[in-house]
């Protein structure tokens, strides 16, 4: 099965269950629509990074207090800060379906999340190769709001990336990214290769989560 279909089905809470035929159809329709209207845009910057102690990380001009981030970044000397979005059209489509067909809205929402992941993964693979030539290895993506990495840092990301102007990625007063299908993250870059297959999901301590991988 297509990996993004698998992701979407997981977001829908199916766990290990097989997806039923009608939902499967909705999933395929949703991806078709998203391929047409989603406009992936991404912006990134590289910053110097230093893990100051087991709970403080200096990233460019920022000092971030977070144990999980410090752990994640140990051994890194640089980091990619990135913001990505699928654009406002996806939000509009979601809103439209929430008035006419709620099951479609729910499925579309899950599929959009999968499309965003796939889009950022795709970029990351390419960029990782480029950085690899300079001898850098990438750590998993880490976003404000993961564990004790405070969501309030969202604001720094938006500002440092100038993402409102560059890709239309903004934030509400409640620190939600707008458009809704957007992400910000930091990726540690180190010269040493550490085995780190753990991604955000496994890192999370909410082990009873319905959507856990």
């Amino acid at each position, binding site marked *: 099965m297509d990996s993004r279909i698998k992701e979407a089905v997981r977001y829908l809470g199916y766990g290990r269950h097989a997806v039923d035929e*009608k939902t499967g159809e909705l999933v395929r329709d949703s991806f078709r629509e998203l391929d047409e209207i989603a406009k992936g845009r991404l912006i990134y910057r590289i910053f110097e990074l230093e893990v100051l102690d087991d709970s403080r990380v200096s990233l460019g*001009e920022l000092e971030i207090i977070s144990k999980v981030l410090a752990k994640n970044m140990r051994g890194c000397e640089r980091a990619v800060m990135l913001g990505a979005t699928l654009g406002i059209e996806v939000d509009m489509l979601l809103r439209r379906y929430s008035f006419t067909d709620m099951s479609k809205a729910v499925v579309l929402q899950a599929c959009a999340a999968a499309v965003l992941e796939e889009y950022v993964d795709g970029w990351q693979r390419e960029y990782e190769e480029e950085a690899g030539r300079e001898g850098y290895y990438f750590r998993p993506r880490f976003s404000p709001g993961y564990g004790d990495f405070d969501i309030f840092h969202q604001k720094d990301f938006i500002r440092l990336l100038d993402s409102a102007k560059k890709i*239309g990625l*903004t934030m*509400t007063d*409640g620190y*939600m990214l*707008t458009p809704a299908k957007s992400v910000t993250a930091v990726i540690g870059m180190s010269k040493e290769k550490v085995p780190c297959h753990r991604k955000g999901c496994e890192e999370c301590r909410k082990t009873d989560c319905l959507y856990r991988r």
Partner: protein
Amino acid sequence: MILERLGKELLYFDGGTGTLLQEKGMKPGELPETWNLTHTEEMVDIHRQYFEAGSDIVLTNTFGANALKFYDTEYELEDIVAAAVVNVKEGAWMGVHDGREVYAGLDIGPTGKLLKPMGDLSFEDAYEAFKEVVQYGEEAGADLIHIETMSDTYEVKAAVLAAKENTKLPVFATMIFDEKGKLLTGGDIPSVVALLEGLRVDALGINCGMGPDRMLPILEEILKYATVPVIVKPNAGLPKQKDGEVYYDVTPAEFAKTMRQIVEMGASAVGGCCGTTPRHIRALIKKTEKLRDFSGREKKVPNNRTIVSSYGRAVILGEEPRIIGERINPTGKKKFKEALKEHDIDYILREGISQQDAGAHILDVNVGLPDIDEPAFMKEVITELQSVTSLPLQIDTVDVRALETAMRIYNGKPMVNSVNGKQESMDAVFPLIQKYGGVVVGLTLDENGIPDTPKGRADIAGKIIKEAEGYGIHKKDIVIDVLAMTISSEPEGAKTTLEALKLVRERYGVCTVLGVSNISFGLPCRPAVNSNFYTMAMYAGLSAGIINPLSEDMMRSYYSFCALMKYDENCECYIRQYAGKGNAVFPAKGTRLTLKEAIEKGLKEEAYHMSKALLADRKPLEIINEEMIPALDTVGKGFEKGIVFLPQLLMSADAAKTAFAVLKDALKEAGDVEQKKEKIVLATVKGDIHDIGKNIVKVLLENYSFDVIDLGKDVPPETVAEAVVREDVKLVGLSALMTTTVVSMEETIKQLRKKKPDCKVMVGGAVLNQEYADRIGADFYGKDAMQSVYYAQKCFGGQET
């Protein structure tokens, strides 16, 4: 005065300031605007360099100086803006050596926030933020207001209105497009040009985002639609990164070379944006100096297209015929009237969406009903509609206050329905078109009524067009409705209308609209008359029929006409619509499913037909109790057990809803009174703009016959409390998605406890759990949507299933 020179000679802007500020030691993270006060000398020097290079217009360092973006505890916004203007003037004094006239442009950048309904910044708050800055700027002596790098039509509208309403200065506005000629918020070039020209900016254009070469195709498209002078300010190429620093690498010579092309194409004012320096401007001026005087320039053919727009797209009238959907209108529609009275916005939105799906290009919006606060309601409906459809809207009202309110908050250049030949009507409507921009429908009637000859109607059209001219409204922004009178009482009605249509097009060359279906009033088999008359009217030159796009007869006429008249290349649209489509009729008999099974499987169509079939020999209530409720219970239980999943649960809910609608109509016909339904208020709390969770709960609660009062998203605590008290509600459901917004949830609960102690509160949302819910004082935490249904049943003493 700059306006005397604009469009008559080439004007030069300055270039970027970021690079220069960095060179002068500005650190990353510093707010550049504070340098106006802390590093006055450096700022003045940067401006001086540009004046020395030859710039006519130098922009103030105030790009981010608005209350929404600029937070600094040390400096006041007013002082920053005032100093910024003074710095440019100082720079001019030091840098202009040839006595030429130069200008300080007050630079206005975007707020960095997304506007409602997709974001959380209200149009009014954006307006206020811009208003503050432009007032400071004018007081400090700025010569013009330059709004730039805008990527949202709605935000730029707020900025232009703020500048126009609060200052006397000329207003320029430039937008940031991507390489496909789209704004980040989706708008295309004609829609942007239509909006800005409608708002009467003095110049418009493009800046930032890319280098000069990639702007060429975009400029070409802008020039196709624009009548006002066009500004072009590219970056020095695309941004590149090295060692964490962003840089641009188009050299001054390369920059100047392409800029010359840009001037030759027809740009009237040029300069640079990110990465450009005084050297770029110097090179640009050297390369284009000979093109400075426009007296030898080829006169542009004025753009006479009739364009209406939404935030996302423009619709051009006068080429192939267009469809204006007529269904958002209470006239003669019982269900619609009920929806209006009950404030059922969802119903109206669905009417909009279904018309778009059926092929409408523009939607007429009429919410006029006695005893309704039309201005407030119109505003709400327009805003909500624009969040679910990108079709341009036609604001249809006789209430001038409602019209102005709607035009003000409309995102785009609307169509306005209508003005007529009465002096009073023109006096009221034209000033609004002049101010906000719009295409207005002119009805051919006046103080003496509706003339019964084609000539009489065309004369009134002429009067309307002439009167509009006095307001500076071009006839391209007038579309004439020659009115269709029913043939059952006016035997000559159709002929007069068709001839008037032709005459108006010939005489004035303006576009036309027509409410088509009036023609058959009082006759049997109206669709036949309507669709034939529709074809005749299109043939007589109708630009846009106001019709019901859900009527298959009308759409057949439309698609056939387009195919016949070669508006539909290779009959593609026609074939797409009708190829392989027989008259599919659902086989009501012979299917083995029961209604219960259809609902369980989430089969909407089948549920509809089956419930109709069942009504033949069973009572509605019996069907509800024996088929529907058991089906919903089975699905709900399956969901709890983890063998039915959310999409399936919702498909079943949808199927049940369809069946319910059929049965409800039957109940009403039989004169049975519907059971009184228990009210539940739902809201996504303040600060939270994601409402999918709340919407899921709503669908399910409605399925279980609760009367849901949906307050929407980003709802302030007071609004929830007010609604609960007003409607005497006993249960509220609140949703929050983020840790940052649970605070508002807590506050909402507090207010509810105080104002309505007997009301229970259930909460849900991604970040919540039982512990959290307890801490903020909720009565119940619903871990999924079904739990909230069960809790609601428990609250209202129903059986817990």
